[in-house]
Structures are given as C-alpha cells and as structure tokens.
C-alpha cells in the first residue's frame, strides 16, 4: 500500500510537467494548427531562465584572500556576490537561495517575447505548408535553440537548487496514519504539483471567463467564421503562442530543483509530451491535462520492481504501449474532438 501511494505521488510531479507541456502544445495546435516540435526547447529555455537568474543574483566581484591559496599555490581569489555586499550576507544569501522562484519573474517576459518572435519570425510562414514541413522546421529550431544554450552554458547539468526552506522532505505517511519514515516525499515536488495545478487552472479560467478567451475558443472551433465577423483572430492566436511558450517556460523554471537542467532536457520531455497530446486527444485541453497525469502515474507504477520482475523493461515502453491501446480503441484519443487532424 505504501509503495502504491509513493508511486502515485511520484507520478503526480512527473505528470505535472507532462501536463503543462502538453497543455502548451495543444494550445498551439488548437489555435494555429501547427505541430510545434520546438516546444520541448521552450521548456528547456524556461529551465535556463532559473539558471540565468541564479547567475545574475550570483554576479560577484573578486577579492583576494591572502590566507588561502588556489590550486596553483597563488593567493585565493574569492568571489563575493554583489547582492551579499549590498544587503549583507544573510539577506543577500537568502535572495540568492530563492533564485528558482525568482526565476519566474524573468521567465514570463522572456518566454512571451520568445514565443512572439518564434511565431512572427518563423512559424507563421509555415501555416499553409503540410504538417511534415512544420515538424521539420520546428524540430530544426529546437536543435538551434539547444546548441545556443550549450554554447553559453556547456553540456553538463547545472545544479539549481530549491530554497533551503523548501528543499527538505516531509513524512506524508504519518499524515495518513502509516509508520514514520515509510512515505517520504520531497517538499519541492509537492510545490511543483500545486504550482502546476495553479497554472492549469489559470489557463482554463483565462479561456473560460475572459472575452479574449471566448474569442480564442470560438476561433479554435471555427476560425473562418470568427474572421468573417471582423475579429483579427491571427493576432489573438499569436498571443496564445506567447502564452503557451510562457506555460512551457514556467514548467521548466520550477522543474530545475527536480532535474538539474542541461541543454537536451527538452527533447526528453518533448516526445513523451506528444504521446500525451495524442492520448489525450489532439486539440483537447482537458484531454492533454488528464493524459499528462495519467501517463505520469502509469510510468511510475511501471518502474516498480514487482511489475518489472513480471515484465522486464516495461518502465521504458509503458507510455507507448498505452498510446497504442488508446489509439486502437479510441482513435481520437481520450477526449479528442471530431474533425481535428482528420481532413
């Protein structure tokens, strides 16, 4: 029982990331009809916004410490962050410690602008081209973005920790009446899950309860008619691209304490997120979210030793297996609408 609860918890944080990326993918696909293979790269760039914030807050000046020596035997040059010299070591240190949550403030404008530039500068030229062309160009773009990040930040994963206050773990088991130390869950993963729920709720509320959202939903249902009513739907869809990029970016920023960011982390998530979109149903936002959590949890269960001992290697194929079964039984996915990708 404890093992099952633990794997459900594990699946929730992984599922949160899948759901957020798949949500963005579906938004773009539903509005612009573009299959965006650069979406994983947007997740990765979001993660690097946290790294950039960490570096910005860590900007320092050099002081020579005569009492210590470096590896060549010269006096040690110590880096003192400006933030610490301005606000004192305690407050300054605390600000640096909170660089991941503070990274959100950087990620939102950066991702929205990046989304606009991508859409206006490149992707809009491919709206009338076949899906294969769109996939190729966005995939190429993903590689370019990856290489740019690698050029500036190197190939190694960069440790970007959660604030000390949220970096411990808590005993979830004792809350449910189990023995202590049986179900332990890292605090940050819970924060990530709640954050993902907040973002998902925010996106749905925006689409459901604002006039802008209503127009976008109408555009998703019937683009031509909305255009005939004199509404500039293209401009709104561009904004939606920016919003989708921001969602992916935020998912990336907050994921950094779970997975040290590196330049190819986006690709690892992209493929799985596409499967999530297909399982959820192309163009269906609730489908993407539900499938994200479902597949995250299934993947966790498949990693259990008891299951792996019956079917070895199941943890690596479970997602694709589920995709096959869903597509065979429900070709439009769990909540797919009729007519999407069927013309």
């Amino acid at each position, binding site marked *: 029982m404890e093992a099952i609860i633990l794997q459900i918890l594990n699946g929730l944080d992984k599922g949160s990331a899948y759901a957020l990326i798949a949500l963005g993918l579906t938004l773009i696909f539903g509005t612009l009809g573009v299959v965006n293979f650069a979406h994983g790269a947007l997740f990765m760039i979001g993660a690097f916004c946290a790294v950039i914030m960490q570096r910005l807050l860590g900007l320092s000046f050099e002081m020579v410490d005569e009492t*210590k020596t470096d590896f060549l035997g010269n006096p040690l040059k110590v880096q003192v962050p400006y933030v610490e010299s301005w606000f004192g070591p305690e407050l300054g240190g605390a600000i640096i410690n909170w660089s991941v949550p503070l990274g959100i403030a950087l990620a939102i404008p950066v991702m929205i602008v990046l989304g606009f530039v991508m859409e206006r500068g490149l992707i809009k030229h491919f709206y009338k081209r076949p899906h294969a062309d769109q996939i190729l160009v966005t995939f190429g773009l993903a590689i370019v973005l990856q290489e740019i990040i690698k050029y500036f930040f190197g190939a190694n994963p960069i440790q970007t920790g959660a604030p000390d206050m949220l970096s411990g773990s808590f005993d979830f088991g004792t809350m449910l009446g189990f023995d202590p*130390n049986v179900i332990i869950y890292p605090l940050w993963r819970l924060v990530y899950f709640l954050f993902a729920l907040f973002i998902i709720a925010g996106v749905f509320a925006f689409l459901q309860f604002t006039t802008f959202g209503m127009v976008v939903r109408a555009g998703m249902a019937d683009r031509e008619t909305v255009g005939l009513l004199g509404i500039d739907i293209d401009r709104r869809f561009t904004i939606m691209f920016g919003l989708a990029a921001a969602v992916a970016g935020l998912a990336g920023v907050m994921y950094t304490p779970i997975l040290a960011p590196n330049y190819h982390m986006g690709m690892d998530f992209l493929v799985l997120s596409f499967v999530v979109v297909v399982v959820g149903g192309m163009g269906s936002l609730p489908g993407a979210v539900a499938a994200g959590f479902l597949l995250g949890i299934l993947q*966790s269960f498949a990693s259990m*030793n008891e299951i792996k001992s019956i079917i070895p290697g199941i943890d*690596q194929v479970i997602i694709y297996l589920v995709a096959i079964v869903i597509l065979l039984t429900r070709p439009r996915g769990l909540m797919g609408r009729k007519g999407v990708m069927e013309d």
Partner: protein
Amino acid sequence: MTNSNLTRRGVLKTGAVTGAGLALPTIFTSRASAFTNEPTGSTVKFGFNVPQTGPYAEEGLDELRAQELAVEHLNGMGDGGMLQTFSSKALDGTGILGKKVEFVTGDTQTKSDAARASAKSMIEKDGVVMINGGSSSGVAVAVQGLCQEAGIIFMAGLTHSNDTTGKDRKANGFRHFFNAYMSGAALAPVLEKAYGTERRAYHLTADYTWGYTQQESIQASTEALGWQTVNNVLTPVGAGDFSSYITPVLQSGADVLILNHYGGDMVNSLTQAVQFGLRDKQVNGKNFEIVVPLYSELMAEGAGANIKGVYGSMNWNWQLQDPGTKAFVKSFGEKYGRPPSNSAHTCYVQTLLYADAVARAGSFNPCAVVEALEDFDFDGMGNGPTTYRGADHQCFKDVLVMKGAENPTTQFDVLEIVEVTPRAQVEYAPDHPMFGGAEASLGECNDGA
C-alpha cells in the same frame, strides 16, 4: 610538311598505358608500406577521438585540452610538463623520431557508431598512427575493435568497464584508466572502516556494459565484507527522473544505496536520493548512506552540496602531491586556468606514453609499439610506480578513494582524497572470471600490412 599519325584511338591507348605506368609505382609503394599509415614525411599525425557534442562534451573538451598540451610538450613547447618527471628519457622535446607531432580531432558523440565513423575517417583520410580519447566504455570497446582491424594503436581514454581489458581486450589497445574491479577492491576496506560489516546494499545500475561490470564488481567486494545485496535495479541511461527507482529503496530495508551511474545520470540520481531524505534516514539502527563507486570532478561539480561525505573512487586527482602530478597541474593550470580532470590526465599521459614507446622501439610500427608498451614499468606520471601489463594491456597503479568534501573552498576541490590504495590491493589475475576468464585473449597484434 609534317606527317602526323596521331589518331584518337592511339592517343587513348598511349594515355592509358602511360597512366597505368605512372600509377604503378604508387600502387606498389602503398602496398609496400610496412604498416598502416607509416609516416613518411617530417610529421606524424595523432587522432584524438573525444566527445565534442552530447552529454559528455564537457569531459571531451577537457581531454582535448590535455591532448593539445601533450602535443606541445612532445614538440618542445611549453615547460615540458610530465616529460620532466617521467622515468623514461627517450623523448627529448623534438617530436618523435625526428618527426613533428600533429593531430586531428573527431567527435565520438558518446555513440559507438559515430565514434567508429570518426575514427575510421581519421585513419583512412587523415592517416593517423594512433587514436586516443573517449569517455564511455561502449565507445572504447567499439573503437578498440576498429583500431585492431585497421592496424592502428588505440590508447583508450576514460573507460571503466572490466570488458575493455577483459573479454573485449585487443592486442592493439591499451588502457591507462582503472576499472570497475579496481574500484570495488579499493573502496571495500574504506567502506568497511566507515560503515562496518553488517550492511544491506541496494544497487541502482546504468543499463549498459559499464553499469553491469561495475555492479558485479562492487557487489562481489562488498559481499566479501559481509554486506548483503538487497536488490539490483537496472535504470535506463538518461532517465532524468529517478524518483520511481529511488522510492522502493525506502521500503526495501536497505541501509546503503550504491549508485552505479555516471555523468548526468549520477548527478540526477544522487540529487534526487538526497531530496527524498535518504541521507537523513535511520535504517536498522544505522545512518542511511550513499556510495558512488566512480567519481569524476566535472560530475562532482554538478552534484554540488549533495556529494558531501559520499565515498567513491578515482583514477587520479590533481590534489596528489607527487612531482609528476605537480608538474602536470602547473602546465595545465597555467594554460587553461583550471586544474585537469582525471580523464584529461589519462589522455595526456597516454599520448606521452605512446610517443615514448615509439621512441624506445625506434619505429612507428604498431607491433613494435605494442612490444615496447607490454610489461613496461615506469614512474613519474602521477600514480607512483606503474605497469602496463602485457597479458591484458591493463595499467596497474595506485587507485584513489575519494569523498565529497565538507567545506570546499572553490569549485575545484569538491572532492578530497581519503586514501591512496596501493596497487597490490587492486591487482588480479589476467584470467579472472570478471575479465572473460581463461577464454579472453588479446589475439595477434595487427600492423595492417
């Protein structure tokens, strides 16, 4: 009046005969080469095949830095580095056998097929006489096989799997790096001293050749101490999130987690294990501990504070205090502003050792080089007295046991040396069952003639 008998057919015939005549000597000379890529001009070319892209690119970059430095020292530039401390004095800083050393580089991408393709291109197009580098055992085994077929010497870079000089050993290949068996043999006494003899270990193992041999070696050496192995779970390479593999550890009754992971996988699995509070746990009345059998500086830097107090092993470390290490760290540090990693050290030393073997043999012929390197004893290269054993082409020297430093002063000293394990403690027979047993054979040396 000139009477010309030139006809189209005649011209063609004459051209064909002349062409064949001109080509004949080159056909013969290429056949007449005594061995593959025999250097004929005033230069000789090395091929440095390292990961320049992909997850181990950082390590590949450090290997390249060291290889470039080694070439400089061979050609008499810089301060000479370890040439000053190397016990053999066959090299004098004027290149090798009077030839200036040049090099080309290839990108292994840490993929066996890409590594073979780049090595093949360097052999066939660039005419290299030796290939050095790499950061993965899968790549090392693949490139070693290719060099054997081509008649080229392969000086394997960072490869830790027992198989490289075990069941997959080749006459044309030599390994300077230590191996998984040696890690187990060096770590066991330290683990016994730190954690006692009654422990229950849980292994998470990277699902490929290196992971298997490392797990097998560590399991054997810890079980010899009296430890029990609770479970061994294979994890996919590049899994990213290891949480679903870590959580079962909590219920397994294990009190030690052994992470047979390398590179980014190790950074992630270690970080996540710490996040799940494993190191704060008490199991069976003991503190829960984590062990990372193979360390690298670059990866330790990536794991940050999570590595504090965690034991592991290394081939070499810049903090050693012998004259060879000091000379190399000085040369490297002054040129690049950072201390060398242990993979950089391996590639640097191997480039010098190959050059020295050629100089002692008086020939670039790979079989003469093999003969010069087999059972070669030397010192001054950073790990004390060292031997390249002839029976399996494995290098034997002291091995380092490391621990994550509690209070590092810079990003370069996140690891500290706990013990220098004497070479006698990590030695084994060439026909050891973990190394292919009696069936494992180097085969015949191939010079490509």
